[in-house]
């Protein structure tokens, strides 16, 4: 069971929390907006991904289950 991260580009305000909390999959672009690695999030990194999702001040980071 793997998961996929997405960002809602409309609500994202480049706080940068997600890139801090989950550098394994999220980098910041030159303006501070997240660049999300395309590969799925494996189970062993799921805890980090969930922390990043919970830490976003605008709730712009989304974690979908891939069935």
């Amino acid at each position, binding site marked *: 069971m793997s998961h996929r991260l997405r960002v*809602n*580009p*409309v*609500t*994202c*305000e*480049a706080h940068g929390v997600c890139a801090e909390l989950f550098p394994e999959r999220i980098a910041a*672009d*030159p*303006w*501070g*907006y997240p*660049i999300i690695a395309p590969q799925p999030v494996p189970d062993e990194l799921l805890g980090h991904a969930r922390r990043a999702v919970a830490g976003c001040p605008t709730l712009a980071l989304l974690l979908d289950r891939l069935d």
Partner: protein
Amino acid sequence: MSITGAPARGGQSRPPRQLPRLIQPGGPLPLAGHLSRYGPVPLPGDGAALIAEAGRAGLAGRGGAGFPAARKMRAVAAAVAGRGHGLLRTARGGVLVANGVESEPASGKDKMLLDRSPHLVLDGIALAAAAVGASRAYLCLHAGYPGLAGQLRAAVAERESAGISPVGVQVTEVPGGYVASQETALISFLNGGPQRPAFVLPRPFERGVRGRPTLVQNVETLAHLALIARYGAAWFRELGPPQSAGSALITVSGTVREPSVQEIELGTRIGDLLERAGGPAEPPQAVLAGGYFGGWLPYPAALNIRMTDADLRAAGAALGPGVLILLPESACGLAETARTIGYLAGQSAGQCGPCLNGLPALATAFDEVAFGRPDGDTLGWARQLLTLVAGRGACHLPDGTAALAASALRVFGHDLRRHAASGPCPQAWRQPVLPEPADSGAAP
């Protein structure tokens, strides 16, 4: 209804075996003439059968994205029937939005179709509404064409008084710039909101205009549907290759002798299409195919490429909304592209950070490429920006702009090296070939 390959009941003239299908020579036909040419509108007793026929025809959307029309219709029909997931159940009818907004600056085919074959589009609206269970329809065109809007309102009234108007059609003029005709921005406008593309659910087929399941279909797609309903899928497939069936309206401009809207069989060679527009008016150097989300193709290699989305994509362009611009040797492809990127950057709705920041940065870098003396750093930054902005907005404005920019760096490589070595060419300052409407600001 008749949706077999045989002509529908009603004794209309035989289906056209060759072009044109959509726009007949001469002026627009009044309703009576239209009905005697094409026969009555074969309203489906069974909507699913008409949708299936559109599916067998392989009708792809003609608004730019090329999405299969039947799949969209099936999704809306299911939502209207309440066969969707629990929350989507609805007892009310759906909404049909006929999209003729055509905000692509170099495109004129939807306006021409609405001007010359209004009743074919209105037939398509009646048929699509019946097929998906829509109880209300909007026919949207760009604001600024009051004459055309008046003609269309008159055509709607003509059908109402003839008693062949199964669904109310409201002709709606839509202001705004490049993203105004994007599906979710258009729905937001019809709901009284800002003309901005949406990222989050619900999608239009679930809840669109007034919260109802909404089918957004380009006006040319609807006109094709009006013919498929009468003559069948097999007839539609008499033109075009199997994967890209039918005919399409293409707006041809730039350095051709007769800038015009041409109805072509899909799969036609670019060279043959240019000949139909009178051929080159002066020596050409490149072709822009697919509009501002398309790509540049080098001349004369472009002449043998066929007008299907697959062929054009393989060559680095796209079919898009059917736009072809022939660029003369006397212009600078980098300068044309730089101006267009500047225009597109100004069209950002300002919602998404990578677009809001990235497109102006790309425009600045391209200005240096076109009108300055770009060094390796500028070029490297421009190339980096292409990958940085692509796929990171709520709509395709950043992706489309990046694709256009990438194709310019590919096709105008020799100009790039010349600009880097000795500065811009004098052609950079000539009268622009690519149109850039001054009156259409960014969406509010």
